[in-house]
């Protein structure tokens, strides 16, 4: 298990994480979602021991990870930039990491390398962006750590190769219970790969839940109330947690938290003549949750 306990991290004046509590259970595939600058990469860099926490603790299987070799050997971090290795060939990159990770498997590396077919003896500086990512991903998986962190890992990788990489990760999860933490702006990818996801905004966790339960948790409502003359506002429905409330002609567009039945009951006093409810997609949840916090896509419309 990976744990953040009231972890705080600042860079100068900027508070990247503010007393964050987070638990990532062993064997899960955990997605980190969030606006730009929300603190996703900071969390990943704390989890692999690159950053020391300023307040609180960062633990891997109960041990502080910073400056702790044994704990760090349990984690492989795939950075969102791989530029530091450009003078290495893939073979040198592999041999470099092999020194630090005792669990490294030549057999697995060979199998993964066979699937991506990268030139072993060309410098990474001659690789394209997507090829560099593939190189570091297969090296990371072959290190056979119990934890793998991927920061925007699929960036620059073509669609076919994405499927191959996803299959490599799923295979490692099935075979040896690998725990994966993925930060991404690609919500479709998070949706496929992850069982749990946390949404971050400005250094705080907005929610952290299982994706399956998240899907039925927020609904989009289109409704017309019996009294068409009356102008309803969000305040007319005090029992309901409303993220978005708008009206076009006589139709109200409401985004509300809660199960379908709860929402229907809360709207019942206004006597809806039509009331359509659909659960939100992950992308809509992302947008409306942040809109509720003032991070609004409607500022440019």
């Amino acid at each position, binding site marked *: 298990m990976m744990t953040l306990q009231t972890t705080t991290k600042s860079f100068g004046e900027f508070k990247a994480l503010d007393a964050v509590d987070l638990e990532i259970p062993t064997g899960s595939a955990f997605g980190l979602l969030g606006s730009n600058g929300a603190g996703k990469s900071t969390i990943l860099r704390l989890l692999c021991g690159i950053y020391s926490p300023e307040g609180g603790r960062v633990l891997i299987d109960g041990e502080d990870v910073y400056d702790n070799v044994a704990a760090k050997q349990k984690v492989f971090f795939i950075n969102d930039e791989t530029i530091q290795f450009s003078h290495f060939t893939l073979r040198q990159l592999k041999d470099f990491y092999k020194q630090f990770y005792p669990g490294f498997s030549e057999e697995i590396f060979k199998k993964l390398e066979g699937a991506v077919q990268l030139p072993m003896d060309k410098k990474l500086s001659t690789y394209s962006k997507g090829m560099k990512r593939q190189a570091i991903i297969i090296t990371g998986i072959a290190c056979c750590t119990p934890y793998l962190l991927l920061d925007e890992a699929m960036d620059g990788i073509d669609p076919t190769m994405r499927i191959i990489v996803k299959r490599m990760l*799923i295979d490692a*999860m099935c075979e040896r219970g690998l725990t994966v933490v993925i930060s991404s702006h690609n919500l*479709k990818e998070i949706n*496929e790969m*992850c069982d749990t996801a946390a949404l971050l905004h400005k250094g705080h966790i907005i929610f952290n839940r299982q994706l*399956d339960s998240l*899907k039925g948790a927020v609904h989009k409502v289109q409704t017309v109330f019996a009294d068409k003359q009356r102008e309803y506002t969000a305040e007319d429905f005090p029992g309901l947690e409303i993220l978005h409330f708008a009206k076009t002609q006589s139709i109200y567009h409401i985004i509300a938290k809660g199960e379908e039945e709860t929402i229907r009951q809360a709207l019942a006093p206004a006597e809806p003549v*039509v009331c359509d409810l*659909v659960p939100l*997609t992950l992308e809509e949840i992302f947008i409306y949750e942040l809109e509720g916090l003032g991070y609004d896509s409607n500022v440019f419309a």
Partner: protein
Amino acid sequence: MFDIDINSRTPIYEQLYRKVIELIIKGVLGEGDKLPSVRALALDLHVNANTIQKAYTLLERDGIIYSLAGRGSFIAKPDHLLAQEYILGDFDKAVTAALQSGITSGALCERIDTIAANQGGDSQ
């Protein structure tokens, strides 16, 4: 065969659950047929194995599949009542929406008769 829609609002495990029932109703899967292993299906659909496992667990709970240790999961003896209930659930939703939009029950009955006639069956 088990294609799913990642962008759908329906959770993936639920889509998979419904898919298996659908395939049984259509006769594609029959009693004793083996389902792909959780791992094979996770790799095939490139979705998280826990999600696949969740669908299989629910299917087993509801008696739609059974699993044998070390051998895999198999389709159980199809329960026709359950299958019909599943189809009628969708039917009820469609009828409710139609009635709300002002279509009369008489018109709906007529439509059923037409469909039945086109299928070569009878509506008795």
